[in-house]
């Protein structure tokens, strides 16, 4: 069964790729100041360095402001339908494991209409890099609350405040058995590209939540985390194998109390030894860290979980190979099964 029709191509040399190669000639159409611009720039910066020929990238998205992303990348791409991006990505990667598939989604696209495809992508561990632009609002449809909007959010469809408790995308991803889970910030120009790179290198579904500011409908939602003067006190940069410290002088740390609840402590007081050591391969550790939220604790950013598990397309390919060895010569053999001759 040689599939001989596929074009035999000579791949471009990825070592010479630059950021410019990844910018399409379409002008981005986001509002001035939208966090999406910054994410786009970082992706365009990181991609050339991954050693993958440009023609092997495919960007898939659903519908939303964020989902316009593929148009601005000079790669292959599909701007699909609302919420179904994970399914398109699964089809592409299953059929063509040689491609580097990226999925761009929003908090509405990925967790409202698309929530089911999202969890099934994760559990299957298809090797797709998922960037969820979480602005906690519906941008494209002009300002309704989303599944990640905080309780009480006053938006167009909730003039009296939202009454649905929000989903945390990280909790959902961990609940679905994701093998790579991370969080970063649209304007953290050091952190964002690092995490993108880690995600790209991970074999399996890499889920990256990016807190993204929507200056038009939900301005300042993450300002306490992104504001450079406060950032070090309000966020906790996770480092695998390291005790969990944060603060301008890294003076604060996290310990677990008797009820397994994380507490902020003064490192000088308790000593670094007592701090919780972060282990991205330990599920309990990931779960505990993922629940760090609230005014009194820092918001964790960075890779929250990274473990290896065979990817969906790998297992599929294996089955094709195994079955191929056992199979007959072709369709005619199959047709002939159970035949009889009339003379």
């Amino acid at each position, binding site marked *: *069964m040689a599939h001989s029709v596929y074009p035999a191509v000579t791949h471009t040399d990825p070592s010479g790729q630059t950021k410019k190669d990844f910018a399409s000639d379409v002008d981005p159409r986001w509002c001035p100041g939208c966090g999406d611009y910054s994410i786009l720039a970082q992706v365009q910066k990181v991609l050339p360095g991954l050693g993958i*020929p440009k023609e092997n990238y495919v960007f898939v998205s659903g519908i939303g402001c964020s989902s316009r992303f593929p148009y601005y990348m000079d790669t292959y791409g599909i701007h699909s339908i609302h919420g179904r991006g994970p399914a398109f990505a699964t089809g592409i990667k299953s*059929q063509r494991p040689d491609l580097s598939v990226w999925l761009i989604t929003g908090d509405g696209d990925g967790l409202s209409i698309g929530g089911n495809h999202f969890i099934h992508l994760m559990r299957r561990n298809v090797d797709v890099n998922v960037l969820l632009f979480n602005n906690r609002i519906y941008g494209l449809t002009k300002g309704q609350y989303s599944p990640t909007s905080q309780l009480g959010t006053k938006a167009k469809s909730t003039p009296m405040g939202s009454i649905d408790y929000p989903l945390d995308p990280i909790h959902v991803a961990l609940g679905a058995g994701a093998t790579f889970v991370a969080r970063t910030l649209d304007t953290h120009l050091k952190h964002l590209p690092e995490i993108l790179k880690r995600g790209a290198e991970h074999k399996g579904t890499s889920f990256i939540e990016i807190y993204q500011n929507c200056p038009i409908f939900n301005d300042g939602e993450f300002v306490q985390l992104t504001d450079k003067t406060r950032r070090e006190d309000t966020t906790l940069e996770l480092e695998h194998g390291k005790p969990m410290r944060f603060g301008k002088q890294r003076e604060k740390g996290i310990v677990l109390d008797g009820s397994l609840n994380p507490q902020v402590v003064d490192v000088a007081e308790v000593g670094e030894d007592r701090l919780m050591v972060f282990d991205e391969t330990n599920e309990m550790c990931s779960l505990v860290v993922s629940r760090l939220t609230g005014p009194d604790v820092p918001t964790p950013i960075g890779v929250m979980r990274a473990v290896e598990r065979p990817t969906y397309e790998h297992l599929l390919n294996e089955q094709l190979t195994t079955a191929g060895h*056992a199979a007959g010569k072709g369709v005619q053999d199959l*047709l002939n099964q159970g035949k009889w001759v*009339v003379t």
Partner: protein
Amino acid sequence: MEKGHYRKMDKAVQTVETVAIRFAGDSGDGMQLTGTQFSDTTALAGNDLATFPDFPAEIRAPAGSLAGVSGFQINFSSVAVHTPGDQPDVLVAMNPAALRVNLPDLRHGGILIANSEQFTKKNLKRAGYEANPLEDGTLKNYRVFSADITGMTLKSIEELRLNTRAAVRCKNFFALGLVYWLYNRDMAHTEGWINNKFKEPLLAQANLRALRAGYNFGETTEMFEQHYEVQRAQIEPGVYRSITGNEALGLGFLAAAELSGLGLFLGSYPITPASDILHFLARHKGLGVRTFQAEDEIAAACAAIGAAYAGGLALTTTSGPGLALKAEAIGLAHILEVPLVIVDVQRGGPSTGLPTKTEQADLMQALFGRNGEAPVPVVAPQSAGDCFYTAIEACRIAIRYMTPVLLLSDGYIANSSEPWPIPDMSKIPPIDVQFRTDPEGYMPYQRDKRGARPWAIPGVPGLEHRIGGLEKEDLTGDISYDPQNHERMVKLRSEKVMNVAADLPPTEVFGDESGTLVVGWGSTFGAIRAGVQQMRARGHKIAHVHLRHLHPFKRDLSDVIGRYERVLVPELNNGQLVKLLRSAFLVDAVSLPKIEGQPYKEREIVEALATHLEAN
């Protein structure tokens, strides 16, 4: 293992032309298996035949209940056979419920074989009988052969000391053996099958013995004075096999993959009666098939579109409610202009409806069930075997025109089987695939003379491009809100689909050149053809056209229809094709609907035609 140890026949043998037998019993009684064995043997004996399995609802009903009755009908003949037969000549009823459900269909004077052991008070009550019909004269219009099939089965395998449950389960082979005797059949095929199937030698032994005991019982009992024989049919010489519609679809898609050199991708979500296509293709990963059981129908369709974009031969299979869910994705495939085949194995609707029954009520949904102007070619196979060719044609159109194509099968052809001349793959024209590789002057929505755009797949340097569901600028494919461009694009896409008709051969007309025209589509082919033949035999001027192409229609259809005074349209729905014909050709076509979840019978077609033809 020993073979052929059954008694020499010495009773009289009467030759008959056509016989329909229905095996009926509880869901657990193995009637589908019994029927399939009888069919295979009959095919090997050189008869023409058609079968119709009629399952109970998906969920298992209580043993002995009316809802739990499972039936399998086979019609076999020494002349050509078009349908599984209207009224069975023989009914095998393994319990009272099976009798109650199926008796109304048995031809007066027909043979009834009943397993008397099951006619207990309890079972009679479950079936809604007040008295035992085997005894109260109810059955006086039939030739009743009532026998303790269970008891005789147990007796025949006594020495093997199986546990009772396993032993009782052999009774369907006893019944099969009896019917084999009745129609003077060779049992070698079934014996071989048993030996193959039952890995456990004791079980194989038991079933073989039950089979032979049934045969011998026929030969020895005084109940039967004679048995029957159906001569070989005048069948075109060649290599045959038995095939169901779902198998033929699966094989057709495998063939299309081979003919095109593409890798087959199936995105599907289980649903009756389409699931078997998924099961079939999942068994053939060795031929490069990637099957993906998605989380739902939407994901199944979307994954297939992704695979198509990536260069696969993409397929998604479902039934009615699943097609409804795929509507948005099909609209996207239409505007993206990627090749995709969507199979809808129609079942009784609306909503969950009658999931195991057949119907043709998704035609309008197939044509119009999407937002905006999103036409797609729609094709329908007319028989189990025809599914193979229709599958290939659907793939050919999808690739040639870069379009989603909808294939409408139904529950009846999906499960019914027929002897089928095995195609020679080397004689089927290959499917031409031209992937774009040249970046020079590449524009994603530049069309060839058919109106198809180039297929440019990821991985090829220089062809990087983005496609999406927003309206596209002509040629470039960039997003465009320009009013005139939108109108142009809607028309270009629609015309491209209409162009499919350019490749099609003229309409085949069976019968007279004027008078009444009967137009059908899909699985009703056999019944309509037979009905029209009967009406011609009665002297009516009448013809039959069966549509494989529901959209676009063949270009000469207008002329063909114009030649007739009257147009009648039998369909298993409330009148759908008839609407399309009336609208397209302004012909006062009359609907002959049947909406019972059951295929049309020849007799019903004849009656329906007669009301119109013989009333005037």
